[in-house]
């Protein structure tokens, strides 16, 4: 269970958000919306433990994530704003290293299926440099298909630059993850159709 208490973040002199308190229980989806620059990415980075909040804390099962460190991170899959793809590595190699860093042991056949599931079949051996923007996003999101063992997914704009087919694929992956008791936090501008027992919405504009 992921909780925040009185969470606040600042950039320079501006306060992005403050007094943010919410919890994400197993099977729950948290949608973060807000205008550009409202602090969505900062909130997600604070939830990941990458950004030190200016006040408050993020807790995982009751303990501060900045104290838990690896104990927290081994439960976390984070797909950030940047795709975390190396231009010189192939789609397959990029997926392998991403899984290795997350501590996942993924057999080659499953990795191939994950890539094919995102419509990149036949492009496994292509360097990421040769992919279009949307294809890069797909290659980055392909790791979700093998991340079912990680209970908490934090996704920054997962639907950006994707076509309808890939958006549906991400939505179904998120839906399946929630159905098996996973937790998902995502930011989006679109009205995502994801079926979940509990959906919490946070709009950073109203903070």
């Amino acid at each position, binding site marked *: 269970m992921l909780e925040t208490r009185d969470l606040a973040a600042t950039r320079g002199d501006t306060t992005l958000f403050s007094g943010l308190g919410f919890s994400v229980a197993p099977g729950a989806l948290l949608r973060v919306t807000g205008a550009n620059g409202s602090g969505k990415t900062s909130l997600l980075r604070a939830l990941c433990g990458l950004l*030190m909040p200016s006040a408050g804390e993020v807790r995982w099962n009751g303990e501060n994530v900045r104290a838990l460190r*690896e104990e927290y991170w*081994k439960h976390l899959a984070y797909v*950030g704003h940047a795709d*975390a793809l190396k231009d*010189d*590595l192939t789609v397959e190699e990029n997926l392998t290293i991403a899984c290795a860093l997350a*501590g996942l042991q993924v057999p080659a056949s499953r990795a191939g299926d994950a890539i094919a599931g995102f419509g990149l079949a036949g492009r496994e051996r292509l360097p990421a440099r040769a992919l279009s923007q949307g294809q890069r996003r797909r290659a980055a999101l392909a790791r979700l298909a093998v991340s079912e063992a990680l209970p908490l997914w934090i996704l920054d704009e997962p639907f950006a630059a994707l076509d309808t087919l890939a958006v549906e694929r991400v939505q179904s992956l998120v839906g399946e993850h929630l159905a098996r008791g996973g937790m998902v936090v995502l930011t989006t501008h679109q009205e995502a159709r994801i079926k979940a027992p509990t959906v919490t919405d946070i709009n950073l504009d109203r903070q």
Partner: protein
Amino acid sequence: MTAILRAVIHRDLILAWRRRSDVATAVLFFVIVASLFPLGIGAEPNLLRAIAPGVIWVAALLACMLSLTRMFASDHADGTLDQMLISSTPLGPIVVARVFAHWLVSGLPLVVLSPILALQFDLDQSLLGVLAVSLLLGTPVLSLVGAVGAALTLGLRGGGVLLALLVLPLYVPVLIIGAGALDAAASGLSALPYFLLLAALLVLAGAFTPWAIAAALRISAE
């Protein structure tokens, strides 16, 4: 955990192979700088022999500096660094794996090439081994200390110059001891004490710099 570290080293070596020209630049720089001195000074065997240790060591130092800026910059830009920061493996060991991979492609070639370059300085054959060993012990220290500077200057404008200003003073002890080993051996003394000092520096850097690098990387990511 060892599987992850192996994956990280493997990744860095593949990347270096696919960007061979970047690696070659630093190595060629070393070869050219070390070769310019005999050409500029002329054929004066005694003088060349006297300056050889210092020149080769300074060239190695500068070649090492050249490759430092690349160490974390692209990972920082494309978001891979974030994934390393929130890896299930502690950041310290990951950083050591990355520095080791960096040394394999930018430090080890200098060690291998140094005896050949030393021939231009008419260095005595018995000293070639001393030169290689001193570089073998010294270049990993350069990579470790340099990585601290690279992590600290990550994402800064004009980071390259700042990196040089930060790191070069810290390289001075390695330079003095490394070149001193050759001077001692040339005057008939044992080079062993210098090797032991270099090894001590390596142990010290190996023990403390990974935590400094990890802390600096976390600050850069905020």
